[in-house]
């Protein structure tokens, strides 16, 4: 953990795709062990921001600082080994490999990749698969899983890496309401039991309002708000850009505060 209590700091991160400004001087910090929600309309630059953090894209401007190390422009595998794991918005299982092998790859090449043995990796992977509820499926090829299970597998592969920072890109999208509730329960457990910091991109509002300690709102690549769920939900600019109906937005806040969601 960094001395100042922040595990990740983004400073003026700017990313262009040709003429499109996908990220426009985005600056914010994430505290150790908090859950940071990242919301915004489609195409706001959320996934792009994850791609910059995990090294898929190099930003044209700005810096990414993880635990006092400037990791801007590092290769993805080096960033992964430093302790940042992520899931993909569009699931990317290693289809031909078994569910267990998928999770083992997370462990073998994650935070402890230099020292971990195959046996240890297998043990961690099995534990994590039980944890996310895929224990029974561990010997199946990942390709045969359904959407919900593939989302869980993404999570399992990321958790098996034993990361300090976990980036979740819409793990709730495409799930049925019951599945969403189950996943929220799982994320709560992870937050309670594991020494982990999470940034989650999410369109399912009640989930993110419910889980996040703080929220950053992106709009056309710009950060338009940052604060607690209440502050964000009451922010006029956020309501116009994203939440739409202010009454609805406030209902979200009330709902989760009264513990209904």
């Amino acid at each position, binding site marked *: 953990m960094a001395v100042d209590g922040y595990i990740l700091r983004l400073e003026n991160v700017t990313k262009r795709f040709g003429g499109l400004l996908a990220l426009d001087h985005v600056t914010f910090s994430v505290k150790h062990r908090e859950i940071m929600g990242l919301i915004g309309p489609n195409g706001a630059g959320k996934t792009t921001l994850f791609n910059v953090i*995990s*090294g*898929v894209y190099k930003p044209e401007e700005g810096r990414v600082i993880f635990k006092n190390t400037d990791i801007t422009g590092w*290769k*993805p*595998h080096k960033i*992964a*080994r430093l302790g940042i*794991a*992520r899931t*993909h918005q569009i699931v*990317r*299982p*290693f*289809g*031909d*490999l078994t569910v267990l*092998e998928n999770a*083992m*790859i*997370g462990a*073998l*090449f*994650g935070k402890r*990749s230099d020292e971990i043995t*195959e*046996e240890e990796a297998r043990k961690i992977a099995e534990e994590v698969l039980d944890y996310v509820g895929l224990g029974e499926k561990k*010997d199946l090829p990942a390709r045969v899983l359904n959407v919900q299970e593939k989302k869980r597998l993404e999570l399992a*592969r990321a958790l098996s*890496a034993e990361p300090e920072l976990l980036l979740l890109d819409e793990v709730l999208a495409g799930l049925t309401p019951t599945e969403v509730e189950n996943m929220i329960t799982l994320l709560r457990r992870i937050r309670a039991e594991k020494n982990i910091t999470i940034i989650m991109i999410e369109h399912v509002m009640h989930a993110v309002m419910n889980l996040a300690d703080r929220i950053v709102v992106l709009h056309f690549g710009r950060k338009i708000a940052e604060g607690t769920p209440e502050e964000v939900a009451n922010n006029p600019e956020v309501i116009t850009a994203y939440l739409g109906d202010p009454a609805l937005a406030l209902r979200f806040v009330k709902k989760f505060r009264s513990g209904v969601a």
Partner: protein
Amino acid sequence: MLEAFKKPSFYIALILIIVFGIIGGLGQANIGSAQLVANGMDLMMWIGLGLAMAVIMSYAGYVSFGHSVFIGLGSFASAYLIAYKYSDYLIKVKMAHGGVLPAGTTIKFFIMALLLASVFAVVTAALVGYAVLRLRGAFFAIATIGLNYVVLYLVIFYLNNYIHSLEGLELGNPSMGLTNINFYWMHYVIFIITILVAYYVRVSKIGYGLAAIREDEDAAEIAGVDTFKYKLIAFIIAGWLASLWGVAKEFRGSFVATDDFNLLYSVIMILENAIGGIGSFTGPIIGSFVYYPLKWYTQTIAGVFALVILGILIILVVTFTPEGVVGILRRKYPRLRKYLE
């Protein structure tokens, strides 16, 4: 590292090593037929070449279409040593020993050829891999075909201008006075090296990394796999193993250094992996057991049409069984999976 060789999936490798050892033993004791020894040798080579290709194609998902270049480099290394550099010396030693080269000298030169072949192959694979492994899919395959021809013409140029060999293609055969059973054991040594290395790469941490690359290279990199390093390691090992088979071919054949750059070898290696199933160690082995008898019979029966049959086989395999024999077995009998690594 030793744990890898205690898994059930090693049984198949072990059985092969024992069976080919027995065939050699029978040949040595003059019990088996000469034909069995010759066929055994062929089969070992096809399995070995299939496995060499598997390391890059089947494990990592990169089809090295010009992989014959490494067989050619192994051939060239042996031809250069035996038929040119030490040719006079070998003839002298042979004369001094009543027309038969002493076993010690043969073994020494066999090892020297393996070492020189390894150096050629590893250096080439490292340099070229560094450049072309940034390409994906068909572009990588095409680049390796280019590599095959570039190296072939460099070799021909060298032979023409510096050795003045016959049409730049052939180096005189010093006729080492070796028999088929000697060649058999040479094949067997290379066979064991190939089996152990290819198996280990598959089941070790490298194998997991390569499998991830094959399935989704970008996701592998994000999961922490140093994809470029792993691909380079796989390409170097695949090239190195193929070069050893170039040495085997030259000792058994006639030290014609340029024949082995034939792209047909690449095609066959690819076919073996396609028949057997992508992604596994057992795949190319099964593929060889399908391909070799077919080739043998078609060559005997169909003569020049053997190539036509080969072509038809490729089309059939790609169209009807893209998952290969191992893929089908694994799907139908999941419990076999632990034996079919």
